[in-house]
């Protein structure tokens, strides 16, 4: 198993170094336009929030997997996880928020020892859509997680899980040896308790992101392929597929540079730029909260340590009205969310 960039003491574990890379070279010499200049062409700079719809809470960077493309640089060697104290501050916000969706992510959020307590408490707040982003293999990682499908069902959690491909080779290459078989088993267990079945209210969606330096294909066509293959080969069903573009940060940026794909990938993102996607990118309807309670425009800005440009920067001072009156912080990684049909944690946006 590979180690996180942080554990390897890689240059790219440093957010400033990543931001420097994303602003220099082809963006400094004029070969490609900066994201700011690009959105200014259609008078969309500065980017500002629309109505808040999603609170995304990152419960920690600890994970049982070390995926090659991970923008969080998550892994077993990451120890940053949210405390109960910060969770309690989040719960106060969840009770009052205008957002209709609560989205728990990580790392593997289930590895946080307070995860179950937090889900139980948060589910009482009456949020319409309560998402847990599960990497699937966690369900099979240890006996203490075997009952997660039942636990999710009990709290009517909407499960969103990563599945890069319907074949073993592509999945294991991106996510690690043995991940495909464990993921298939976990999906079958989720199906067994009712998740993902055609008429079931227990929602199970899959996330596809490309296993390499290329953009995702058409979401609807990919969903058709996934559904056909998973049903025929493993009798697995799910509701929707979200096709997500890999953003050039953290471990994916490291991969792009090491494989000499960085410049071509950035060209692909810029060529696929879709101005129609800009107004609905996820930072316009989401607030991302880190394990230590800081507020960000999105999970990607969180990993680049770009805190919201607002008087309110921490969950302890949370004020939705003030936060709405902010300018969203952008850099060249944002091209990842505006390529083609756009990309967000909920899939395409345009």
């Amino acid at each position, binding site marked *: 198993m590979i180690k996180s960039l942080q554990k390897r003491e890689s240059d790219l574990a440093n957010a400033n170094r990543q931001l420097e890379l994303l602003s220099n070279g082809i963006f400094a010499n004029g070969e490609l336009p900066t994201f700011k200049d690009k959105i200014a062409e259609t008078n969309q700079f500065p980017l500002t929030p629309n109505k808040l719809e999603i609170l995304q809470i990152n419960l920690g960077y600890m994970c049982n997997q070390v995926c090659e493309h991970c923008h969080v640089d998550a892994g077993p060697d990451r120890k940053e996880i949210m405390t109960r104290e910060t969770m309690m501050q989040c719960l106060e916000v969840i009770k009052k928020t205008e957002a209709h969706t609560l989205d728990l992510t990580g790392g593997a959020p289930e590895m946080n020892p307070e995860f179950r307590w937090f889900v139980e408490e948060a589910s009482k707040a009456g949020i319409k859509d309560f998402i847990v982003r599960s990497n699937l293999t966690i369900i099979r990682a240890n006996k203490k997680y075997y009952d997660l499908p039942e636990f999710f069902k009990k709290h009517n959690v909407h499960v969103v899980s990563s599945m890069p491909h319907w074949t073993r080779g*592509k999945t294991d290459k991106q996510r690690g040896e043995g991940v495909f078989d464990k993921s298939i088993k976990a999906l079958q267990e989720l199906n067994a308790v009712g998740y993902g079945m055609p008429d079931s209210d227990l929602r199970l969606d899959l996330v596809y992101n490309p296993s390499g330096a290329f953009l995702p*294909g058409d979401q609807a*066509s990919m969903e058709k*392929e996934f559904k056909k293959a998973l049903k025929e080969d493993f009798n697995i069903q799910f509701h929707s597929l979200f096709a997500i573009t890999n953003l050039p940060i953290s471990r994916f940026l490291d991969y792009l540079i090491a494989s000499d794909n960085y410049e071509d990938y950035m060209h692909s993102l810029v060529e696929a730029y879709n101005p129609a996607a800009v107004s609905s990118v996820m930072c316009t309807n989401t607030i991302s909260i880190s394990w230590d309670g800081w507020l960000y425009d999105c999970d990607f800005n969180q990993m680049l340590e770009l805190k919201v440009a607002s008087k309110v920067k921490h969950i302890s001072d949370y004020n939705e009205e003030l936060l709405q009156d902010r300018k969203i912080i952008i850099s060249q990684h944002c091209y990842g969310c505006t390529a083609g049909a756009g990309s967000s944690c909920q899939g395409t946006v345009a």
Partner: protein
Amino acid sequence: MAKTYYDPADLRKFGKITEWNEELGNKFFDYYGKVFEEGALSAREKSLIALAVAHTEQCPYCIDAYTQDGLQRGITKEEMMEALHVGAAIKSGATLVHGVQMMNKVNKLEM
């Protein structure tokens, strides 16, 4: 001057051919775009055909473009290689079938 005839970066400049003849260039790209839309054949099937033809035409730009296009569509490397063998079989078959002409000629000329 470029040191080689083919520069991978030239693929990105393909759209610029319209600059020297806008009308015909645009007509070509309209046609091209239409051909690859979903139709009686899926866009996925068309991508595999394009990949095979890219190889039989030995066009390095097209090979790069349709390998990447295939990956984006979730096409596996096994499917890509099978498509190539279809192209290779037709290409070699097209060579060999001319052997009949050779045989005809030999049979006509020889006593």
